């Protein structure tokens, strides 16, 4: 089956002005990330602020073009777009944003918000558009009378349902969801996570799920990509990575996440904070905070390679695996 997304070595940099007279600096947001998502699968991109996870989502969601790299959406080249494919490509990928208060136009009724994509992208008649919008509303758990209401009349959880309905109304192959539940309360988070899972089961849509919350990722994802300073330090099936994380950063992330259940893991507290993406460390990106750092790490960027069923970029991944098994 053709993957919904195939990305190779995506790179994105931004020029950041630092004062009036100084030259603009180069911020390396994403530094060569490759990924693939199969239909009906969820890839979770995990990382802290400044890791480039939103930039990665925006490139795959066609909001911005990568500086270099290859990107295929549903088998079609999304960078050197053949004429006439641009509109079709945009229909294959849709977005759900973090803040449902900012992502819905306050002056439009829900009906208008949901039918607008159909006006632009399809030849449906007005009657069919309304029918489709109402069908979509029912599927995300909104009532028919909500059709004529404005966004401010809804709670945060309901607004996120509207945003999800809008994303799915064109039957996309992929939805990029950028922290879709982090603005919601716990009980509402659970409702939205269930909705996303139901819709995936019914429509076969794939998700690129961007999140900083590992408990959520552990619940929803099939595959996980751990991003640090624009580099994918570890990526592979969720169970493989959660059971036996090999990159020290993944280990630290999992150990730092507070949970209410089970035995408490010894908290590996990594020191300091992520360095600025304007001048990342020359060797391994995590070398400034890694508890196992050696001179080699500071000088030589580790190669990304397959170790025990996942891709990992750490000089000592094989060693960690040995000590864990013995």
């Amino acid at each position: 089956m053709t993957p919904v997304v195939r990305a190779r070595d995506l790179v994105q940099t931004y020029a950041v002005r630092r004062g009036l007279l100084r030259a603009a600096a180069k911020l390396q947001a994403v530094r060569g990330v490759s990924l693939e998502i199969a239909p009906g699968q969820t890839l979770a991109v995990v990382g802290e602020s400044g890791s480039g996870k939103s930039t990665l989502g925006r490139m795959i969601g066609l909001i911005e073009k990568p500086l270099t790299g290859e990107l295929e959406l549903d088998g079609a080249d999304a960078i050197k777009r053949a004429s006439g494919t641009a509109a079709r490509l945009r229909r294959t990928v849709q977005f759900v944003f973090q803040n449902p208060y900012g992502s819905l136009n306050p002056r439009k009724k829900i009906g208008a918000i949901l039918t607008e994509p159909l006006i632009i992208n399809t030849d449906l008649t007005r009657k069919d558009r309304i029918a489709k919008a109402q069908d979509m509303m029912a599927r995300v758990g909104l009532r028919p009378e909500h059709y004529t209401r404005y966004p401010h009349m809804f709670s945060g959880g309901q607004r996120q349902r509207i945003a999800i309905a809008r994303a799915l109304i064109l039957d996309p192959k992929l939805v990029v969801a950028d922290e879709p539940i982090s603005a919601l309360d716990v009980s509402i988070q659970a409702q939205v996570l269930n909705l996303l899972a139901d819709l995936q089961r019914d429509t076969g849509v794939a998700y690129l799920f961007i999140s900083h919350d590992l408990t959520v990722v552990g619940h929803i994802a099939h595959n996980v990509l751990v991003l640090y300073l624009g580099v994918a330090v570890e990526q592979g099936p969720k169970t493989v990575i959660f059971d036996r994380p090999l990159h020290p950063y993944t280990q630290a992330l999992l150990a730092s996440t507070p949970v209410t259940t089970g035995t408490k893991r010894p908290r590996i507290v990594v020191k300091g904070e992520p360095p600025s993406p304007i001048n990342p460390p020359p060797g391994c990106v995590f070398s400034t905070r890694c508890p196992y750092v050696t001179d080699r790490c500071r000088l030589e960027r580790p190669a990304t390679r397959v170790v025990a069923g996942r891709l990992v970029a750490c000089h000592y991944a094989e060693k960690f695996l040995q000590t864990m098994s013995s």
Partner: protein
Amino acid sequence: MALLHISALSVEFPTANGALRAVDQVSFELEEGEVLGVVGESGSGKSVTMLALMGLVPIPGRVRAERMVFGGRDLLGISDRERRRLTGKDITMIFQDPTTSLNPCFTIGFQLTEALRVHERMDHKSARRHTIALLEQVGIPDAESRLKAFPHQLSGGMSQRVMIAMAIACNPRLLIADEPTTALDVTVQAQILELLQSLQRERGMALILITHNMGVVAEMARRIIVMYAGQIVEDRSAAGLFDAPEHPYTAALLAALPERGGIDGRLATIPGMIPGPYDRPMGCLFSPRCAYATEFSRRVPPELRAWQGGRIRCHYPLGDPQRAAKIAADQPALER
């Protein structure tokens, strides 16, 4: 004697359509050196309760209480002047977003020494010495040169460390931390929690940790208060609460956590939403969303009462052996 004693605290905000009750009859005690977690969803009144304790409820909010005593001093009849002497010294508070809690116009050093000069009447030199020691204690490297830094030159984690240094400057007996790590990254969150925990132990100060993150309180607090719609619904030891919650709301909240997995990959959910000011139910405030609501609980609000070594506000606690019979006798509510 308890360090803090609050009974029947209510906070109301007048609106065009009548009073909005943000905090409703909240009572609790806190011992010297105790770590208390207060959890609840947005709108549960957890932050406003603490603002009332600090005397920071914004106008036109009305604060009423039967008793509010801190360290033997009555906080209700106190003058503004006396209260200012207390807050910032014996009771201090840190907030969610450290970058907006610091004044952008003054250096870190100035803002840190202010508390010492005002409350401890230190001179400039000894305040400065003391401040450097404080910054080192909260893990800020190269403390002396940091004194001249402005808040925008610090990262979020560093700003929160500065806030903590400011809060502990005068050796408070109680530190209230309102969502102290919500704005921070996971690895930095772990550092700040570790710091709060070690400072609390070293100094023996009491700590109230307000958060919506169940994992954070599970790892930090010995005792937990769960709030819902302005009321305390459960108050119990952390171990007991997470293993065997007694209130249906607490149980539902825990079941909704993704880490608890759910059945077949589906998470348990709580239908409906927290009642707003205009649709407050007559009986138990949770009854419209409760799986065990009865005709009786919809009519008669439960009192907060002692239960299994803690307190609970529910007619039918989950650990009550006669529970099923009681629910049957009170006629289960047909629809939610």
